[in-house]
């Protein structure tokens, strides 16, 4: 903080006051006083300091030269991203912004106003519209939500911000919780355990088997069930043969083994997330 904000202040001349700004920008003012930024009674609000000029910088230069002086957050010729963001982060450094520095979006030089709007409806702040903001860059995620299995994202029941903090986080992939599994347990607490019989990869990382935004397979699985399990399981029984390792366990002409790949495949018999049954060592109970 300091130098760059100070540079903006130095470059703008004197503060003119919100009433002056309002003369030419009545709509913007009217909208702002119906938002949190426009509440002068809140000492943290820009309107408790220099009003519009808290964010845009002093307006004197702008009055004499309408093209200059102010920090412009939008329009055809916005101020540099760094300048815009400095005006926001002079206040927004704590809370959900505490990990903004060196976060993915900050490193990619995203402007706060790439997602947020101050003078019109801020779609990013409404859980029913925020996905549209994210899709502006992440249409691949949007496409995934149209797959066979997905979280209820396109229905608006699950918002991107239910899992992610777009300002950076202590977790991976800007997840809100400290680990991916912790994030999943927020809605799937029944899978948290600890179980008597753990399935270790499940305990370590849900994403070893599941996608998060969408999949052509059931239950957001990364592959067809049996093949997914066979990435890690190739048993040899005491008689030399073994469970789900023969060619016909994958494509079975012996009907008895069809249950390994039809229906819910391995989950036809196994509780793949873990078991709390004393006889659940093979995750059958």
């Amino acid at each position, binding site marked *: 903080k300091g130098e760059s904000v100070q540079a903006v202040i130095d470059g703008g001349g004197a503060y003119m006051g919100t009433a002056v700004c309002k003369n030419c920008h009545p709509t913007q003012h009217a909208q702002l006083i119906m938002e949190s930024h426009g509440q002068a009674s809140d*000492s943290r609000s820009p309107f408790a300091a220099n009003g519009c000029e808290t964010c845009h910088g002093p307006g004197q230069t702008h009055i004499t030269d309408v093209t200059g002086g102010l920090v412009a957050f939008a329009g055809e010729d916005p101020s540099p991203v760094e300048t815009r963001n400095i005006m926001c982060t002079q206040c927004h450094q704590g809370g959900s912004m505490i990990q903004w520095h060196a976060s993915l979006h900050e490193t990619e030089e995203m402007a706060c106003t790439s997602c947020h709007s101050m003078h019109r409806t801020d779609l990013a702040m409404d859980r029913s519209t925020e996905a549209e903001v994210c899709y502006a860059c992440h249409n691949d995620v949007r496409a995934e939500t149209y797959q066979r299995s997905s979280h209820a994202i396109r229905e608006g029941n699950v918002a991107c911000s239910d899992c992610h903090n777009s300002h950076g986080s202590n977790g991976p992939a800007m997840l809100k919780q400290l680990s991916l599994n912790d994030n999943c*347990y927020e809605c799937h607490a029944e899978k948290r355990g600890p179980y008597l019989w753990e399935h270790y990869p499940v305990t370590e990382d849900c994403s070893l088997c599941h996608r998060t935004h969408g999949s052509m397979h059931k239950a957001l699985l990364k*592959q067809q069930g049996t093949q997914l399990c066979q990435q890690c399981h190739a048993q040899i029984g005491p008689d030399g043969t073994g469970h789900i390792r023969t060619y016909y366990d994958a494509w079975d002409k012996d009907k008895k083994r069809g249950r390994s790949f039809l229906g819910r495949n391995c989950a036809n018999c196994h*509780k793949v997330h873990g078991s709390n049954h004393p006889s*659940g060592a093979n995750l059958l109970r």
Partner: protein
Amino acid sequence: EAESEEQLVVVEAEPAVNEFEMGIGYIDDDAYRFGRYNGMVDQGPYVIGNIKGKEYDGDGGFWRLRGTNLGLDSRYLRLDAGVQGSQQFFIEYDQIPDYENDTGSTPFTNPGSTDLALPAGYDADNIDSFLLPFDQKTERERLGLGGKFQIKSRWQLSANWSQETKEGTDWIGAAMGPSILDNIFKWTNGALLPEPIDYETNKIDASLTYHGEETQLEFAYHGSLFDNNDTSLSWTDPLDDPSNKTDDPIHRPGRISLEPDNQMHQLSAVLGQMLSSTSRLTALASVSLLTQDQDFLPHSVTDSDLTPQDDTSLDALPQRSLDGEVWLYRGQLKLTSNPMRNLRLSAQYSYDERDNQTASNSYTYILADGVPGEFDIDPPINPRSNDPLSYRKQKVDLTAKYRFNSIVSLGGGYEYNHQHRDNDDVQVKTTQEHTVSAKLKVKPLSQLNFDIYGETGRRNGNDYITRNYEHPDLRVSYLADLDRHKVGATINFIPFHRLSFGLKTEYLMDDYTESEIGLRESDQTSALLNFNYQITDKINTHAFYNYEEFTSNNANENKEIEKGTYDRWEADLKDSSNSVGLGFSIEELANKWDAGLDWVYTQSKGQIHMTGYQAPVDKITGVIIGDFEPIETQQFSDLETSLNSLQLWTQYQYSDAVAYKLSYWYERYSVDDWAVDGTINNYNPLENDTISQFLFLGEDTLDYDQHVVGLAVKVTF
């Protein structure tokens, strides 16, 4: 001055910010899948209801209200109120249905019960006449309350509580009724069963934050308490015991444990500190406690003569409940700095420890409530001991980015991951991974920029320990040695500020270098094209195309010594999907009309191609005595899905306060999944024969062709 006064009057007349939309819609057909998450499952009318509103009184007092889908089972409602800068409160209600499938059936008369009952006179040989439909459907309802209090100018206290219930009926798979010959297990029956879902999760969050200009702090507590009102599911095997096919067939009882109650409590402290105008430090310390102490079920619902104990008695257990206790310790330290105007540096260290203090004990393994499993092999693997997983993860992440000039910048990074697992039952105790990455950003024109990036990494583990009865050449994929390479590029072209094109493409290759059995390699390819054109301030258009492809190769082997053959197969899997979308919106056409269109088409295909190889084996020594020769290829039926979704709407502004909105939604969805379609209970469509020892749900994947129209009035005030 007079003009200013006039404008001031306009300003003081607050813009309309409150909006209420109400109307009626019509769904043209029953469609469980279409309404899976939105609740539009039944043909007929439904109520359209949305509301949003807010008000500030000028002294910080405010309220905000938001409600969506109020006439559907996917309704959401939230009210915030308070005095900004002093105290704020909210109350929130959220409902999410999950209509999974309504074509399944089961012979049990009471799906949803914890004790499944077969009908009187039940005959497994005539199972079709006893099947009853049951719907796989669950529903979440969440109520949340909370508040924020500004206790000093820079200190804020917040507390939230929520309770979420999830109720309904899902499915669960279970082995049952083991076939017994001479008191030794030979085979089991199995079935997909209706599973009762009756969950309740209470969450509590409390935090104290300090927000200074240079220093920010957060102390937080997060608690999550999960209760399952159903502890187990019992049944009588709906299939006959295949070893006892008599006039009076045996149907054995069984019981499975359901998800246990558990709790999580987490304390955390986060610090953000500006060290100078160009350097910042953030730090995190967190400790979590996970507990689970659900009462155990007995080893079995029937006693086995092969064990010295009464397997149905809780006294035979080493303890009555798990008394599970896991401590999670996390720490992070991140330093970011811009030592020069063009140079950005960051360094991060993360520590993540899972200390599982759950006791390890021996439990008799009774297979499927019937017989002790694997007593008859050498070495015996019964009883079994649980081996709770503990691990320590450490990560170092270094990044640098240098901007040479306004056109070119170059970034790079190095990441080191180290994980050590303390328990003995994992194949690899220690894995370490090194990854280096680089990214070149070029902006030759103000309207054009592109990035090229690449990443290469290697994961190595210490000695691989093959577990009992695992193929010696298997390398469990998530622990296996791995070389990973990724390259990608993005291009953004903005000819002028209203028009933009974007391209993003990426290729990822994973090579499991030591894996002969299991997952051997996998690749991902993706490409995304974006187009946005704001024709005027009031007309927006957009379009996108997305392609994804995942390929992988699995292999496995089976030695049939008695047959004198050694079989090997390889599976080449390819999943691909194409999505295309376009849309536009028009505002204030002729000052009266708004309109919009949004269309998306997605098509995906999953393919599995199998190749079988065989080599001769000496029937006495078991040694391979020849070369592997390909013997057979098989192609699974393709897994295919497609979705065509079109939404159109128009809104007529009848007056300043009243508008009418007409909407139309067409959606067509189809899925062909050979693993599900036509699997009619105990009928196998692949061989046109029955799977005599397994009972499926007999469901089909759900296609639909759905039209929905809606007419609503929108009032703003």
